[in-house]
């Protein structure tokens, strides 16, 4: 068994292109033994124990079970000791893999009781993992070869004169409420200036009437009331708005003679 391994493993290691102390390192070491100073290079050439195992199987027709487990394990133990500083994690991965191989081998060697003859081949799981890894490895190569943006694909990105269309800030009701709350907090107006819905309606109507008078200058009092379309509450609000405006000295209400039309105009608009 040992002889087979040696013959196989002396084949050219074509995927490895590394130099150790000036000498090309292209031969798989005998008995899979890797000199500790070459280990780093070796580990860099393979992505891990699965990769190494796959390489041995594919390139050298190595039977998984022909790997001399005991030797391999002894070697890995030596690496782990020597590599405590560098790439300890990776050495651990190799160690784990050899433990798995040993487990498989020991299960193969154990005589199987007849009733569990149908038990899965212990190597099947390893083979499944090797096949899956191989597929991923090839997929990775394929992805690597595909043209990519900035690496084979050039995307149009011609210049244009940027003119900015500035979007005005969004404001929602909560922003407004928050602002008003801040105003009140600072001004300590809570107690004196409670704003009710009714008051807001009056204030809105005050603005509406002012706007109307701004454009029409002189409006007959009754024209300010949309008696046909608005309900009583609205009409009351409108009346309150006119009174409030008059109180604040913002408009003037005039009547030439009793029972003649009443006119409303902005104060100072004669």
């Amino acid at each position: 068994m040992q002889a087979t391994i040696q013959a196989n493993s002396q084949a050219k290691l074509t995927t490895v292109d590394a130099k150790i102390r000036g000498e090309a390192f292209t031969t798989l070491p005998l008995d899979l033994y890797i000199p500790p100073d070459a280990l780093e290079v070796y580990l860099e050439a393979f992505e891990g124990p699965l990769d190494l195992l796959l390489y041995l199987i594919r390139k050298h027709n190595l039977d998984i079970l022909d790997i001399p487990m005991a030797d391999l394990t002894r070697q890995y133990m030596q690496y782990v000791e020597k590599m405590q500083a560098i790439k300890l994690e990776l050495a651990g991965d190799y160690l784990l893999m050899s433990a798995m191989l040993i487990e498989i081998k020991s299960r193969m060697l154990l005589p199987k009781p007849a009733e569990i003859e149908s038990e899965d081949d212990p190597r099947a799981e390893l083979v499944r993992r090797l096949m899956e890894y191989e597929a991923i490895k090839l997929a990775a190569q394929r992805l690597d070869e595909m043209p990519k943006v900035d690496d084979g694909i050039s995307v149009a990105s011609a210049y244009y004169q940027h003119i900015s269309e500035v979007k005005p800030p969004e404001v929602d009701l909560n922003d407004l409420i928050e602002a008003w709350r801040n105003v009140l907090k600072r001004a300590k107006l809570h107690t004196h200036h409670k704003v009710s819905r009714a008051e807001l309606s009056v204030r809105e109507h005050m603005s509406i009437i002012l706007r109307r008078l701004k454009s029409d200058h002189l409006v007959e009092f009754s024209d300010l009331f949309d008696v046909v379309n608005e309900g009583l509450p609205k009409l009351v609000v409108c009346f309150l708005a006119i009174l409030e405006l008059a109180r604040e000295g913002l408009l003037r209400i005039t009547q030439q003679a009793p029972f003649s039309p009443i006119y409303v105009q902005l104060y100072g608009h004669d």
Partner: protein
Amino acid sequence: MNQTSNISNINELKNVLEVALLTSNTPLSLDDMTRLFSERMERATLRMLLDELKQDWANRGSPTMELVQVASGYRFQARAEYSVYLARLNPEKQAKYSRAVMETLAIIAYRQPVTRGDIEEIRGVAVNPNVMRQLQERDWIDVVGQRDVPGRPSLYATTKNFLDDLNLRSLAELPPMEDFAQQEIPLDT
């Protein structure tokens, strides 16, 4: 035979330049462009090709891009008339309104019609004219009259557009202040 170095055709050369210029996000200098070709390229030839390329694009029925020369080289750029469309693609979001703007707006909304003096009295600080301008430009407030006091200060009110933008049908839909009183019950007791 080296396929890539064997371009004799002028159109092919122009095409290479077109592709390089359309895909580069910085202007290409003549030196950059000579590097595109494996064989030696005279700068005079390059200039002639660029001139032809420029003409080709200008002579299209309705040109979209133009080849221009700027300080660091040549580039294709969108013709000016397309700027308005492109601007719509990435509208710049303006920063939020300042606290001063929001508080002024709130005062006008709740206390309208108000003068700047009223706003200053409530906020306790002078009103920056810029604040009023921002709100007027947004068409959220306008002047609805003047108060009949010395100086005849303008009276401000919120507009219909303000209600629309805040999704309100009328000012009465603004939360009345009583609601706040309830919300201000401290939670940590």
